[in-house]
């Protein structure tokens, strides 16, 4: 290694400190919520400001209330449905479309690509989109959430670029061995583009987990609410009535549990994603770069 001179040492130290502060600021809001969620409900209710550590007697009471709540359970299952069915459909359509569009020498590909890319330049807008869903009779159905956003154009383009790197010679020799295009996609192309497939699946799944706007304008029955819509009521409309009244909390205590329940709900809705994503982190750079280097 080349020796560092003094000014470089100073730079290195400051750099480490600066990055540490950035991490602290990034983590603090979530840390704050985590600490508040296990604090004494009365303290959480009356005192705000910083929470570096749990305040007062540590308790998991908020979590038992949240997890025992049937509304949360239903919303959680709904979200699970939207994530699994939505991501499955998205991946199916994206992989098929991207593979075909990545093959060279097909006349229609040029036209179809133009047609797809035009939709990035110009959209019909919110109201025509809403009316389309309404006219198709999809209001308040699960399909209104699953279908309209099944394919994301960016993801399709990234996927297509990744498939374009699958050598034609490999495909050709598989074809000579009698493999159908359908088989070639699933047995050769997808495993070869594994990193990108994983990242795109993660993007779709996270999108589905966090999605709230389309459900908010299309879904009216609570039985079909995804978790995020319930969260919106609790966090932004300040409506925790659906949370505490069903729990075994006395009338007088309900108000004091309001804040605690908020924090616990945030945790319950966020933890699943935070657990999954570090495992896929190693794919980020390779998966994204392959798709964007030559778009």
């Amino acid at each position, binding site marked *: 290694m080349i020796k560092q001179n003094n000014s470089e040492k100073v730079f290195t130290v400051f750099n480490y400190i600066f990055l540490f502060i950035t*991490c602290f600021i*990034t983590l603090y809001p979530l840390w704050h919520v985590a600490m508040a969620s296990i604090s004494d409900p009365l303290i959480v209710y009356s005192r705000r400001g*910083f929470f570096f550590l749990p305040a007062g007697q540590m308790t998991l009471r908020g979590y038992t209330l949240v997890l025992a709540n049937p509304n949360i359970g239903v919303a959680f299952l709904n979200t699970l449905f939207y994530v699994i069915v939505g991501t499955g459909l998205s991946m199916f359509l994206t992989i*098929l479309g991207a593979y075909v569009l990545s093959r060279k020498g097909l006349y229609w590909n040029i036209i179809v690509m133009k047609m797809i890319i035009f939709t990035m330049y110009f959209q019909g807008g919110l109201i025509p989109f809403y009316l389309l869903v309404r006219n198709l009779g999809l209001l308040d159905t699960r399909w209104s959430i699953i279908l309209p956003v099944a394919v994301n154009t960016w993801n399709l383009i990234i996927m297509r670029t990744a498939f374009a790197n699958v050598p034609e010679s490999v495909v050709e020799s598989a074809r000579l061995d009698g493999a159908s295009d359908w088989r070639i996609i699933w047995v050769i192309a997808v495993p070869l583009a594994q990193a990108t497939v994983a990242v795109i699946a993660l993007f779709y799944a996270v999108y589905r987990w966090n999605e709230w706007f389309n459900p908010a304008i299309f879904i009216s029955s609570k039985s079909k609410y995804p978790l995020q819509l319930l969260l919106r009521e609790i966090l932004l409309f300040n409506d925790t009535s659906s949370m505490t009244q069903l729990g075994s909390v006395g009338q007088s205590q309900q108000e004091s549990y309001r804040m605690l329940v908020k924090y616990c709900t945030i945790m319950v809705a966020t933890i699943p994603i935070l657990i999954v994503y570090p495992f896929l982190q190693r794919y980020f750079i390779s998966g994204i770069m392959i798709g964007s280097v030559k778009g």
Partner: protein
Amino acid sequence: MAAKPDAQAGVMPWSAKIAHDWRRHWHLYLMLIPVVLFYLLWAYGPMYGILLAFKDFSPRFGIMGSPFVGLRYFREFFNSPFSYRVIRNTVLINFYNLLFGFPLPIVFALLLNEVKNRYYKKTVQTITYMPYFVSLIVICGIIVDFTASDGVFGEIFRLLGLTPTNLLANPKYFRSLYVGSELWQRLGWDSIIFLAALSSVSAELYEAATIDGAGKMKQILHVTLPGILPTIAILLILRIGFMMSLSFEKIILLYNGLIYETADVISSFVYRKGIIENNFSFSTAVGLFNSVINFFLVVFANKVSAKMTETSLW
């Protein structure tokens, strides 16, 4: 152009070429059909509804049957005091967001690239990518909590000797809150692509620079930055192209009547007039105005990119 399928195809009339192409590739095209149908229905379907902008929509007659009113709703929008306000807010919020949200991830990537300790680097990455995956509802919930007069920001105000106030009730804080929270969520994530570009700058160039006696700053200026300049150019153009189509979701989750003055943008206005107040025609007209601006911005961005980098984005 497509590669020649075979020698014969070159001399065929185009109808025969298409038939030939179909015979050769029909099993591939079959798999393309679902995606084509998806785009026809969900991307092109709504375009038909744009007609609404020129009609006085009544549900009884549907889109076709409603009477034609020409540019009435466009005039109504531009004559209203809201047009200036929402256009100004859209431009300003986007501009500030670009001003901070674009260069800072580059700086962050440069700094991270200088970290030699692998574990420290990896930890910083894991932590700073994380907020990107947190849902908007949760982020807005935390913002509301932190900005309340007795929240975390209130506490900071108190420590600084200022009077704590509810930041979301005061129009002058909204843009900072918007840009700041975007930065919090995206700093790490947006730096990934620059980090990847940095890792492809050749090590030999650094060695050569070191032998020439260039210090850290000189190396960054003369080796690192030129190395990632194409990536920076492409991404900047992309950002500008999609600048006006910013997501209004955060805005409609956070704003309220008290702060429309600085918070209301074109798309949130469209949402409020259309979905909440059921002014379908008026709202479609305003939305169309927004779409047309977006269209020209993206076309412009693509042209510039094609000139500058000799590769257009698509």
